[in-house]
C-alpha cells in the first residue's frame, strides 16, 4: 500500500525563531490508516501536523527544509507540498488535507450553513446537491441522527462533542483525502471522546488520518502506527502495538510508562 503522505527529513523553523522547532523529521502517513503522534508538550507534534497542510503559511516567514510528499489525486505520483506557491494551490491543498482543531470552531450560523459554507466557496451552488453532501457528511461524522430535525438551528447551541463532530462533518464535506486531528478530544468529556474515537475508526475506511493526542491510551486504542516525538525530533515510529508493548527506545518507554523528565 502506498503512503498517502510522506514527510522526509523535514526541518522547520518558525519565523524569527533562533533554532528549528522540528529537526530532520520523517513520518509516513499510510493510506486508510490512523497514525498517532505522541510526546510531551512543546515537542513539535502540532507543529509537524500544521506543516502537513501548510497552515503555518497563514503567517509568513517560516522556514521549511525537506520534503512533504502528498499522493496525487490520480494516485500515479507524489507532489512535494512544500513546492506549492499560489493561493489557489494552497486552498486545494487544504481541501485535500483537512484539519480538526482542539477546540470546536463552529461558525456563527446554522448547522446546515456550517457545512454548506465551504462547499459554496468551492463552487457548489445547487440546493439539492448541497443538501445531499450535508446529509452524507453528517452521517459520516455520526451526527445526523442527533441534528436531522434542527439543521436550521444555530450551531453554537450544540454540545461540545456535537460541535466537534460538526467540525469534522464540515471537513469531510470537502472530500479530503487526509484528515489531520490536533487533539480533537482534549476538551471533551469521556463519552463524547469515545464517540469521536469510534467515528475516527470508521473514517479510516475512507480517509487517511494523522492525529496528535496527549492521551496515550487514546493513541493505543485508535491508531495503527504511532510516532513518539521529543524536543522536535522523531524518537521512535512504529506499529502502535509495538510502541505500547515493547518500545525499542528507552525514551519512548519512559514516556509512555510515566517515567519521564
Amino acid at each position: 500500500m502506498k503512503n498517502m503522505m510522506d514527510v522526509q527529513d523535514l526541518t522547520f523553523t518558525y519565523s524569527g525563531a533562533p533554532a528549528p522547532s522540528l529537526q530532520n523529521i520523517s513520518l509516513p502517513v499510510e493510506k486508510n490508516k490512523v497514525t498517532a503522534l505522541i510526546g510531551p508538550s512543546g515537542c513539535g507534534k502540532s507543529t509537524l501536523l500544521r506543516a502537513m497542510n501548510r497552515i503555518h503559511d497563514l503567517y509568513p516567514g517560516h522556514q521549511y527544509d525537506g520534503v512533504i510528499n502528498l499522493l496525487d489525486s490520480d494516485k500515479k505520483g507524489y507532489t512535494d507540498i512544500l513546492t506549492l506557491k499560489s493561493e489557489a494551490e494552497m486552498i486545494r491543498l487544504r481541501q485535500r488535507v483537512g484539519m480538526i482543531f482542539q477546540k470546536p470552531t463552529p461558525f456563527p450560523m446554522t448547522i446546515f450553513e456550517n457545512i454548506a459554507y465551504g462547499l459554496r466557496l468551492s463552487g457548489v451552488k445547487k440546493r439539492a446537491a448541497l443538501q445531499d453532501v450535508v446529509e452524507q457528511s453528517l452521517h459520516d461524522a455520526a451526527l445526523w441522527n442527533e441534528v436531522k430535525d434542527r439543521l436550521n438551528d444555530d450551531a453554537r447551541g450544540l454540545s461540545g462533542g456535537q460541535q466537534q463532530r460538526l467540525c469534522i462533518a464540515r471537513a469531510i464535506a470537502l472530500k479530503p483525502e487526509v484528515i489531520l486531528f490536533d487533539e480533537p478530544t482534549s476538551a471533551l468529556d469521556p463519552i463524547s471522546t469515545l464517540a469521536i474515537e469510534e467515528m475516527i475508526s470508521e473514517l479510516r475506511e475512507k480517509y487517511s488520518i494523522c492525529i496528535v493526542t496527549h492521551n496515550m491510551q487514546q493513541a493505543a486504542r485508535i491508531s495503527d502506527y504511532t510516532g513518539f516525538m521529543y524536543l522536535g525530533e522523531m524518537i521512535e515510529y512504529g506499529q502502535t502495538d509495538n510502541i505500547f508493548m515493547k518500545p525499542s527506545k528507552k525514551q519512548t518507554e519512559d514516556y509512555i510508562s510515566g517515567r519521564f523528565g
Partner: protein
Amino acid sequence: MNTRKHISHKFDEEIAAVTSSVLNMGGLVLQQLDLAVTALLTSDKTMAENVIADDVKVNTFDVSIDEMCNRIIVMRQPTATDLRLIMAIIKTTNDLERMGDEAKRIARQAIDISERGALPDQFDSMEQLATRVKEMLNRSLDAFARKDIEEAFEVIGLDQKVDKDYENLTRQQITHMMEDPRKIPASIDLLWSARALERIGDRSCNICEYVIYLVKGKDVRHIEMSELEAHIE
C-alpha cells in the same frame, strides 16, 4: 528493564507490593514442596497433613495478587515493561498456585505411603529428582526477583535433567513392581509423586519464560530449547 522512578510514587509502591507478594507466594510454595517431599521420604503423616491444610494459604495469595493486578490495570493502564510485568505476574501466580496443588498431591501420596508402608529401596532416585526440582523452583524465583534472564535460561536448561531423572525413576519403579508385587501400591504412589515433581519443574520453566518475556519483550513459549537463545537477540 525500567529502573527509573515513576512520576507517581504510589504506582512504584503498588508495583513493589505486588512483586513482593509474588515472591512471598513463591517462598510459600517452595516451603510446601520441601515439606511434602520430606513427608514423603520420611513417611511423616502429620507433616503431610499440614501441607494439605496450608494449601489454602497459597490459594489466598493467588486471589489477592489477582486483585492487586486488576486494580493496577484499571487505575494505571500500564504500558511497555509495566504491562509485561503485570502479565508475567498474573501468569506466574497461576503457575505457583498449580505447583501448590502438586505439592498437595505429593503430600496425599505421602499419607498413603505412611499408612501402607514402603521398602527403603523404593525411594531411590526420588530424593535426587526432588532436589533438582526444588533447585529449579528456587532459581526461577530468583530469576524473577532479579529479572535475570541468564539465570532463567539456565533453569530452563535444567528441565532436561529433571526429565531424565523422571525417566530413570519410572524405570526403577517398574522394575520394583515386576520383582515384587507387594511393592506395587507404594510404587504407584511414588510414580504419582514423581509426576507431580516433574510438573513442578515444567512450571518453573514457565516462570522463566515469563521472565524472558518481561525483560526482552519476546514470547519464548512453545519454542525448542535449542532455538531459544537464537530467538533472543
